[in-house]
């Protein structure tokens, strides 16, 4: 194991030195551009439309300066002009500019007059960096092996203990047997146990004990039957397999996307809404691969495959960067199923009361696979209504009713229940 880490380390060192070397060579041509600064500038300004190795809204930019110089004979000044004001270059009748303009659907690149020539140099230095190999696979193997070893040891200890007990029992039995044989051999009269009524018979004959026992059995079975019946139809922990492995952990957790970005109707409607595929494509048009943490179960290839499924649903041709028009709506499996006879309104809880989504849906940002966190039973709803104060601040609707009701109940803050949130008809109609 140590060996593996060591190897990774050496590989990293190798990669690092290689890149430094490359950087040095690259900086020769980029005339002192700083690729580190360039990277942050690239991510801030260019990454929305460009990638280094992949055609997106705009062309791939790896080694753009070199390529332009080699293929088109365009110098760096052309690049400065283009980045500062691409429309101007196109207008001037520049051949290559017009070619690119037409190739990318007649959309001119946004002008960046705020970027100084030095900034552009930095960016170009970044684009001139050599492509790196991701060391992800090795780390994955490493983590896997650690978790495995600890699992085995527990079982081993238990197994050993079990064998020990068995041996002990066997030993005792053998000792007993041998002693008896000795006694027989030496004609020692063994005191026969007096014939007593066996314990179970005595137990049965004791009516009081029987009664207590019966009551106990009845009560306990009633308890279990009740418990069983009460969980019928309660799907807490329901975690179905979805057609696309959508990880809330990556989206809401790692990337910190607001829940209501995708579930936007939660703000205005009774339903939170499952986002339509075009909402996914807002980001996934440019995010075509997964570069975050992975595990053996969920590798980078796996995640990239799932993104492909989104493209298929949306009818997006990633290579051509355009929609084919052949769409396939995604058949998600619904997790939170309220019965038909309950009216629940998301917007009232989210927009009016300001309840966090996590209050009911649990730590969604940590869920790799989403499951139902809350039992969604009426008791659960009511418990919350009993204890939660109504958010009345800056809401003209509540002004009068809150003032009068809080006076009536003699409280500072009203709970949802005091506001009438326990009435049957508020949810059942």
């Amino acid at each position, binding site marked *: 194991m140590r060996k593996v880490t060591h190897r990774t380390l050496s590989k990293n060192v190798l990669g690092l030195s290689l890149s430094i070397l490359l950087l040095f060579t690259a900086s020769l041509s980029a005339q002192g551009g700083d690729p580190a600064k360039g990277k942050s500038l690239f991510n801030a300004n260019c990454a929305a439309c460009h990638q280094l190795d992949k055609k997106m809204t705009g062309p791939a930019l790896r080694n753009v300066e070199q390529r332009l110089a080699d293929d088109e004979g365009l110098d760096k000044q052309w690049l400065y002009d283009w980045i500062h004001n691409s429309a101007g270059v196109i207008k001037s009748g520049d051949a290559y500019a017009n070619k690119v303009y037409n190739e990318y659907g007649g959309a001119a690149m946004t002008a960046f007059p705020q970027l100084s020539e030095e900034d552009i140099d930095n960016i170009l230095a970044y684009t001139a960096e050599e492509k790196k190999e991701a060391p992800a696979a090795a780390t994955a193997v490493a983590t896997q092996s650690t978790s495995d070893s600890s699992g085995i040891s527990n079982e081993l200890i238990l197994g050993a203990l079990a064998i020990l007990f068995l041996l002990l029992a066997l030993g005792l039995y053998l000792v007993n047997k041998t002693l008896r044989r000795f006694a027989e051999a030496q004609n020692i009269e063994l005191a026969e146990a007096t014939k007593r009524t066996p314990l179970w018979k005595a137990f049965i004959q004791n009516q009081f004990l029987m009664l207590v026992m019966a009551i106990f059995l009845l009560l306990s079975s009633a308890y279990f039957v009740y418990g069983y019946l009460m969980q019928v139809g309660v799907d807490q922990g329901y975690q179905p397999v979805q057609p696309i492995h959508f990880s809330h952990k990556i989206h809401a957790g790692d990337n910190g996307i607001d829940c209501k970005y995708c579930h936007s109707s939660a703000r205005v409607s009774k339903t939170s809404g499952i986002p339509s595929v075009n909402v996914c494509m807002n980001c996934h048009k440019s995010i075509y691969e997964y570069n975050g943490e992975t595990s053996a179960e969920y590798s980078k290839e796996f995640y990239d495959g799932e993104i492909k499924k989104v493209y298929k649903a949306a009818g997006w041709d990633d290579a051509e960067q355009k929609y084919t028009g052949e769409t396939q709506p995604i058949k998600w499996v619904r997790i939170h199923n309220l019965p038909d006879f309950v009216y629940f309104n998301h917007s009232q809880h989210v927009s009016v009361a300001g309840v966090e989504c996590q209050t009911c849906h649990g730590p969604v940002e940590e869920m790799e696979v989403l499951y139902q966190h809350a039992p969604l039973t009426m008791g659960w709803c009511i418990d919350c209504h009993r204890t939660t104060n109504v958010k009345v601040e800056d809401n003209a609707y509540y*002004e009068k009713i809150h003032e009068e009701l809080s006076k009536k109940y003699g409280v500072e803050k009203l709970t949802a229940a005091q506001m009438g949130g326990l009435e049957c008809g508020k949810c059942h109609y």
Partner: protein
Amino acid sequence: MSSNKKYWKSVEELNENSSIVETLKQNEFVAEIPTDEFLGDKDTLESTSTSRRDFLKYVGFSTAAASLAACEGPVKKSIPYVVQPQEIIPGVANYYATTIADGFDFASVLVKTREGRPIKIENNGLAATNGSANARVNASVLGLYDSLRVQGPKKGGESISWNTFDAETTQKLNELKGANKRIVLLTQTFASPSTSKLIAQFTEKYGNVQHVAYDAVSESAALDAFQAKYGTRGLANYDFSKAMTIVSVGADFLGDWQGGGFDAGYSKNRIPQHGKMSRHIQFESNMSLSGANADKRVPLTPTQQKIALAKLHSHIVGGTVSGNLPEHVEKAVQSAAAQLKNAGSAGVVITGIQDVNAQTVVLEINERLASEAFDTKNVIKTRQGSDKEVSQLVADLKAGQVAAVIMAGVNPLYTLPNASEFAEGLKKAELSIAFSMKEDETSSEAQYIAAAPHYLESWGDVEFKSGHFALTQPTIRPLFDTRQFQEALLKWTGNDISYNDYIKQVWNASILNGGSFNQALHDGQFVTNVAEEETASEGAETPASNAAASLAASAKSNGLELAFYTKTGMGDGQQANNPWLQEFPDPISRASWDNYLTVSKADADALGLANTHVATGALNGSYAKVTVGSTTLTVPVLIQPGQAKGSVGLSFGYGRTRGLKEEMQTGVNAYALYQGFNNVQTVTVEAAAGEHEFACVQLHNTLMGRGDILKETTLEIFNTKDKKHWNAVPVVSLNHEETPVTSPDVDLWDEFDRSIGHHFNLSIDLNACTGCGACVIACHAENNVPVVGKTEVRRSRDMHWLRIDRYYSSDETFEGDDAKKEGFSGLFGDNGSLGGFGEMEHPSDNPQVAFQPVMCQHCNHAPCETVCPVAATSHGRQGQNHMAYNRCVGTRYCANNCPYKVRRFNWFLYNGNDEFDYHMNDDLGRMVLNPDVVVRSRGVMEKCSMCIQMTQKTILDAKRDGRVIKDGEFQTACSAACSSGAMVFGDINDKESKVAKLKEDNRMYHLLEHVGTKPNVQYQTKVRNTTEA
């Protein structure tokens, strides 16, 4: 004054010895659980192979199986859009303004859509005219999800593509054009500027084209009369909010007379303000909605009506007319004339007699009165049919002179009296195309069925009245492969633009005057002053020079007269496959799922016709053979109080046979007798064998001797006497002192403090309510109320959360009878007591009518809540009586204990059950369900929730916006649907609200106040304007 009048719901109650009334008083659930049927028969019980132990085994096994099956939850899929449309947020409703124009109903409405599905029709508050939806328009949304719709074009029963259709029909039309053969477009009244233009273009292209507009229920006489007098083809417009004296001779203007939609204006002056209200006198033969609302109703046969109208004319305009009327009618006509003259420009006369002279007479009277309610400028355009042209067309077809017939929005094989002739002629045509949503009587006989979209899937425009335009816009993508008539016209004329763009062009060019199309589309309506192009029909009849005299001269009767009418629920029969409308009880007869011959008690006795009640309270009636000319129909008979002696009534709209489910094939087709498009026919009626079973809810839930449920008084008493005379609060004795029941001292219960937050009240004004029933259907649509079917309704198991009770009471006071009695002299002769007593009106001959919408009263001290063993029904702080369906175990104690009989029990599973083949058993029909309201299951009690889903929505929206709720924001489905202003809903803790003020009104009372239930629904005492002159 209010409580010593005797009210009754059915003639049966007037019979003192009726056992059935007694039974009904005693039993809440009229049908006993039939335990005797299977337990009483000892032999079968003994011979059965299932022993008690076996039975228990079965029970045990099925319970275990059921609980095992319940453990496994089903996997539910959730499929979001790929690209979500911007305007759709799941869970949030969108509203679109659109217009229904099906040839019979024309209204500007708001359509509520959820997740892209239209689920409810509401009134369009922005509309200047026709902004109120009647019961049929409210129900029309269900027609969109009709499982029997034609799903694509068809040729000879086989499905074809639209391309084939286009190729074949265009080729054929061009052939006909080449041979200069005659092409006829037979359509409903579209009243659409763009369609008129398209038809003109079509005519231009194909040469020998004739457009015939056809109204199934003809208003041709009124159109002809108007055309003769004013030059343009249309109907005079009436604004009853400007009329204080209204005299109607046979016009059911609160029903469908001349297109309907007059009730909102009428109701405005029915509420007494500053001691004044309008006076309404009705001369009619059938008991209509208008007659039921009238202050004075004079039953007259159609012939007598003609004479009465002529005489009214002579009194007001002058001239002499012949003809005799009974003395009391003569007096009534004189009195009406005097009142009209008194009222001057605040008076108005209308008539429903389909006779050019009669219609002319009315126009003349209104001109003489200079009636403000009478408007000849903004002419009603929604009826354009011409009887003569249609008759001519049938003759030409039969003679083989018509090469092509293209029909849209009409069903002549059902609605024509001479349908067989039309069918014969249709076969002779070289090309016949029917644009239809159904394979109905006509389209199934045509060569091509062009599948037409529902109006909620179509574009369109309508000119309701001159200058009052409205737009129709699709609220859902077409469910099926359909195409509307106008799109086809565009195709045939070689125009490539869509109809939507075409409308825009027409509107921008000639209607909008620079106004915004999008604004007009948003509002649904656009009002402008456009130069009126005169439209006239050549086939119009002209009135006689002295219309009144000829009218009177033409009034000759020989025998019984049959007067046709349209029912509030069914109209002309287009929506016969709509279960909501089939189950809608007629406001007057309270019968559902049927049409019938309405006969007066006297005539019924003379003809040997009878109505009987069976043990469960259901109504049976004898059959009668009704003959007009050579056509005979066998029709069930319903004895109708108030029906004029010598007349019978029969409604259109029933007896459809094609394109509707078996359950909806109810009643008989009255159009078969509609000869010459005359709504009055001389008939012979004779009793026939057999007994018909009605599904009539009139005897369900009797008054139980509590007459004070309805309070009414006269305007005179209302103006002159103190409240305690006409709207006294009941008192009880406390320590030998009279204490009003509203006092907390005599209450069994402690009062709960409801002064904080909202406290909802619904106020129902019995004066403004016309009984139109729009609220009943609106409630149906909003609350997913199931349809139970005829046999179940017959068992008193109707599920309507909101019913409109109709009470009859004897004519005014008995003073008239007393005077007559004084005047008797001797036994025989004109003034003889022997004949005189017999003549003395039987109370059912001309009763007064009152409508009373009743839903759950949401009692603050509710008797139902205290008896529920599982606390499934409980009270909210906001005044609503809640019902937790999932908690209910179906003991029905609550229904037994409810003094208002408003609770409804789910005897069966109505949803997804093929035994109830209406709309909830197929996926298409279920699309109309409101997703915010539970679909109840079997064994559960349900009732009006005061639309808690709507009040909650209003509150939740206000909370989210952080604002205070204004008066008028709170609505229930019924109050929102009520265009007459009878129902007002709101928060009485908001002291400035309308409903809080109504609660303090002198007319306010609660139903059965002496019971002490403290309801949250209040009623406003009915005031009748009985003041003559």
